[in-house]
């Protein structure tokens, strides 16, 4: 991991790291990179990629609309709400 990649990741994740955090993360990625190198030495030829731990498929439901919660219930714990909307810091693109 070089500093440029980390800067790019910060931008993509919309994060602003302090110098201290940057140092800490660089050290973390250093170790993680070494661990990944060890994993890379395992021969995985002819081994299918495993994404789903449980051998399950087709967890699906029928198309029936239900109303299970009221807006007030859902917004009870919202940090900020106004006129039935969730309220968040102004978005700038």
């Amino acid at each position: 991991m070089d500093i440029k990649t980390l800067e790019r990741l910060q931008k993509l994740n919309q994060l602003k790291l302090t110098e201290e955090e940057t140092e800490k993360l660089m050290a973390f990625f250093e170790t993680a990179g070494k661990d990944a190198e060890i994993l890379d030495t395992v021969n995985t030829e002819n081994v299918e990629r495993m994404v789903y731990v449980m051998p399950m498929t087709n967890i699906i439901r029928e198309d029936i609309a239900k109303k299970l919660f009221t807006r007030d219930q859902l917004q009870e714990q919202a940090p900020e709400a106004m006129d039935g909307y969730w309220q968040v810091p102004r978005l700038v693109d």
Partner: protein
Amino acid sequence: MKYETVIGLEVHVELATKSKIFCSCSAEFGGEQNDHVCPACAGMPGMLPIVNKKVVDLGMTAGMMLNCDINRVTTFDKKSYYYPDLPNAYQTTQWFAPICVNGRVDIETSNGPKSIRIKQIHMEEDAGKLVHDDWTDTTLVDFNRTSVPLIEIVSQPDISSAEEAIAYLERLRDLLRFAKVSDCRWEQGSMRCDVNLSVRPVGSDKLGVRSEMKNMNSLSAISRAIKYEIARHTKAVENGETLIQDTRRWDDNEGKSYAMRSKETAGDYRYFPDPNIMPVVIDDEWFDGIKATLPELPEVKRAKYIDELGLSEYDADQLVSSRALCDVFEDAVAVCGSAKEAANWIITDCMQVLNKKKMTADMLDINGTSLGQLIKLVSEDKVSRGNAKRILAAMFENHIADVEAYAKEFGFIVSNDTSAIEAIVKEAIASDPKSVADFKAGKEKALMALFGKCMKQLKGNANPQVLREILIAEINKA
């Protein structure tokens, strides 16, 4: 040097489901803000998505209508996304195994026929709505549309003009509406289009730098935007300027496009499989079941209506403009046996009622079999045309399974009881000696006045021919 344009379209279509893609909230358009929301689509921790089967059904249907291969094992992935209209900070979509791949849409333009290849169709969730509040200087979030099911249809860069783009979009809309995949209403945002466009010297096999215009929602805007972008790109290439790959916003009022941001690459989205949604496996039974529901293509129906049922080209065109009209028409013909009559009732009378209700043809929701029964009753002179229109209006409100029984119950059956007609005719003659005298003196119109009076008394339920005969006979006796 001559240049050619290379266009690929990404079309988002909202699917015609009752509920959202991963939760049971209503997927209906509109509603009060945050009225169609639950902990799952509001992104609360610990909530798990469960796939709506109908979304897979409609995704498959779309793929079959567009000549795609269906992936029998299809999976969902997470795409990084940082706007609050998707509260999970990712969009659940399909990247590694989309439901459909390798399709084709055939179009006609002034240059003749052309095939536009489809790269893939994937299922995904829509984002919510953000409202910027100047008063509090905050952003307000409405999650009603969050997780409403979409398919995104990605074309190959086979389109080379605005005309071809419009022909492709119109064909896509016709096919998807016919298969009831979506109502495809541009004005409600249930069909939206991103345009990817670049320009290169004719004969070059290298693509030029591309710009993407997002969320266009009318055909005329798309056409104007494409023409503008072709001119902008060509001018830049001719002047040796370096174009930047960017995402642009089209301002239809100004007739200009503006750069919004430099374009992310696929890597920036950091797609990864969603471990909370198990793979969807489509077995033969499921696949064949969907295949059996595919409608005939509009052009096949049109040919059949003209060649086999003897309709005029005009009538056939009117009917195939909407699947709903075709369905009612075919059911009605099966009962009444007269294609011409059924077409007239639908194109004239049903459309009149729909227009009055400010509804579109796609919203025609009467029972075709009942309409067939009604047409039959009229052709057998059992119900007058005027009263049949009243019954038709009632059909728009309630399902009437047995139209004859309904007509009897509400007194709409034409009376064959000549004695009842005679009694009313005698009364009318006695009360209006002037009209009788006028008719006898040769004024044909006077008969109509008497005829109208009698028909009103009979509530329209008399055979006009019989009534006329009795009227003349009684006048002559008077």
